[in-house]
């Protein structure tokens, strides 16, 4: 065990640091108070993504020929930590870079790699993940959206739901049923779908935060070129699992940036708040809570580091990713609650700190549902990591 950075890793870190120092904007806001500021924020993130790409810092663990930098997973985690230290904006397309890209790299045809990977990294393609349906959530393989071959196109009909970023995405990784007669896991196929195709309708769904970050998507006779099948026809379940494995392993690392920013901001904020004639950071109970938030986040970071260091040897995100998903989602809920407790009644107000803590608290409730519920993660850990029998 040696967490000292090798000479190569050290020089990599210094290069990252130098670049970030020169390029991370000193002042940038995450104001999400109205639709205009949300749109502005999105555009901001898009231009930041472009800056990253131009500097050679997008998708850095991807192979060079696909626009990446071919760095090790350890170097990628160094990069993530440096981003957090530099207070850089978050990634534009968590789904594209964390989930769709790695899946295309793993199972895509050469032409698909050529066509999709670079625009994804440049921020030109924003991807969404069309998996869940009204009657297929945890039991994803029960999905019903159909695709029928007609000449050299698949014709897609059906409905997806809870699609994050569906309203801003121009591409979608869609799972459809291509063989209704086969057992449910055997008749699925993954398609890469242009969201501007005729017959695609997206309807935003308001979340409990009041934002519409996810959507319903309706597909009516949408024609998708057969060349856009990702992987093999009727073998879409394996492709979807590859995507989900990447999501579980990568999402938390990407979100760490925001968790860290929130945790540090809370500590700074707490020091400015007076209660009963003294800063709340002098209150022993508040100190307990802040220390707990800090240590929880740190244990998550170390857990990720350890998992990534293991992956560096095998290079495939295994079911262990479920441990990380379970950890960060429940941690973020604990820490969002801690923030409210430290701040007191004012903390939950939309008028305090632009509603940052109100939003975080509400948004965190979705963490244990999205990307596979906590119950499903625990099932995966029990059955695929610990080898207990299937319960369903």
């Amino acid at each position: 065990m040696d967490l000292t950075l090798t000479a190569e890793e050290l020089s990599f870190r210094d290069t990252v640091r130098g670049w970030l120092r020169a390029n991370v904007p000193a002042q940038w806001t995450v104001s999400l108070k109205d639709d205009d500021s949300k749109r502005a924020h999105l555009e901001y993130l898009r231009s930041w993504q472009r800056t990253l790409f131009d500097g050679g810092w997008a998708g850095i663990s991807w192979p060079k020929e696909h626009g990446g930098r071919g760095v090790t997973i350890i170097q990628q985690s160094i990069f993530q930590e440096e981003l957090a230290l530099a207070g850089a904006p978050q990634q534009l397309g968590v789904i594209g870079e964390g989930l769709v890209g790695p899946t295309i790299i793993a199972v895509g045809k050469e032409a698909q790699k050529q066509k999709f990977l670079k625009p994804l990294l440049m921020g030109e393609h924003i991807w969404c993940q069309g998996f869940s349906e009204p009657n297929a959530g945890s039991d994803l393989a029960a999905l019903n959206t159909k695709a029928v071959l007609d000449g050299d196109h698949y014709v897609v009909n059906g409905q997806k739901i809870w699609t994050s970023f569906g309203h801003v995405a121009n591409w979608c990784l869609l799972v459809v049923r291509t063989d209704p007669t086969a057992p449910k896991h055997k008749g699925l196929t993954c398609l890469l779908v242009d969201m501007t195709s005729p017959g695609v309708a997206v309807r935003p769904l308001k979340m409990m935060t009041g934002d519409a970050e996810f959507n319903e998507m309706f597909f009516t006779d949408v024609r998708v070129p057969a060349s856009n099948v990702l992987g093999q026809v009727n073998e879409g379940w394996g492709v979807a699992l590859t995507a989900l494995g990447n999501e579980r392993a990568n999402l938390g690392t990407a979100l760490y940036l925001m968790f860290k920013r929130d945790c540090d901001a809370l500590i700074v904020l707490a020091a400015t708040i007076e209660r009963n004639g003294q800063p709340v950071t002098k209150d022993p109970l508040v100190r307990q809570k802040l220390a707990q938030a800090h240590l929880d986040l740190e244990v998550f970071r170390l857990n990720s580091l350890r998992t990534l260091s293991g992956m560096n040897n095998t290079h495939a995100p295994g079911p262990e990713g479920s441990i990380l998903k379970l950890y960060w989602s429940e941690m973020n809920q604990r820490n969002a609650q801690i923030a409210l407790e430290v701040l007191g009644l004012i903390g939950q107000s939309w008028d305090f700190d632009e509603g940052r803590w109100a939003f975080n608290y509400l948004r965190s409730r979705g963490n244990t549902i999205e990307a596979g519920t906590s119950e499903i993660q625990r099932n995966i850990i029990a059955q695929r990591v610990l080898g207990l029998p299937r319960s369903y």
Partner: protein
Amino acid sequence: MEFDLSKPQKLLRETARATLTQNYPLERVRERMASDAIHDESLWQIITDQGWVGLNLDESCGGLGLGLVELAVVAEEMGRACLPCPFLATTWAATLLDQAANSEHASTLQSITAGSLKATVALMDQNSDWDIEHVQTQLKPTPAGWQLTGRKTLVLDAAEVDILLCVVRQGLELAVVLVSTTSSGVHCTETRSLDATHKLFDVSFDAVSLSQKDIVAVGDQAREALEYATRVATLATCAEMLGAMQWIREATLDYAKTRKQFDRTIGSYQAVQHQCADMLLMTESARAATYYAAWALTVNAPDGNKAVAIAKAYCSDAGREVAHRGVQVHGGIGFTWEHDLHLFLKRIKVCEFLFGNATWQREQIAKLIL
């Protein structure tokens, strides 16, 4: 960068596991628990033959010159074996003696690493906590040298060892003095611990006379040596807890795979599966935190001290939780004296409070970040 144990570290783990399972199965632990003297000379011989006492100390004082990751590896295996011996106490004391770097005591340190002397640290005054600044026991000057009168509480393994490193005040200064447990005026009274494998004692000092050379360190030197050694012992405690958690987690999983109710193994029920999944998450998280802290302290990383506090806070909460869930999944058999689970539950419970529980450690973290 590599988080996993290196080849030699893995080998050390295998050796430790094989040595302890062969020589010290849980039946022997139970035999010791049932007897008055928990200490077993043959076990100490095995441990010192392996060079584990002082493993983290320089070869010049009889150590192996290894790092704290290796110490954690060995301590984890001792926790997994629920080993009854004054290893933790002696490691604490030996590290303290080493840090104090007092040439008067070089040969004592040699004897400790060689296995002929065992030692512990007497830190807490009555009604004080793990904060060394709270120590008030006074060392008084006499015409012939010094005299110690006072009482230390909850001293780990005191009656099992030969030497006490006692934390006192010389005037206003913090000091560490070396007292033989056989000196006249030293009395150890057992405070029966929940965990019979980690014995605790009240030690009273009744006009114990000491000479100048018994003073091991004074002032800042005493404080720094004590802080570092206590951190090392805290880390070893985390590793012991981790080993105990690992034992419980594995035993619980085995049981879930074999015990049948309603014609199915209980491990096929989700309620049980989720307990097992959580136990894995907590054990692996404790592992990440503990080994990171071991590495960080070894290389003197800027966040080394915080890392130890984080590891101890996390292990204290998670260890207790894993033990409780392990009992729950076992049902009635898990609540019996006969089943070995309670040995580990008790080991974890005492370790939870040794060197400060999660609440205490969180305050240490708060001091560093707020």
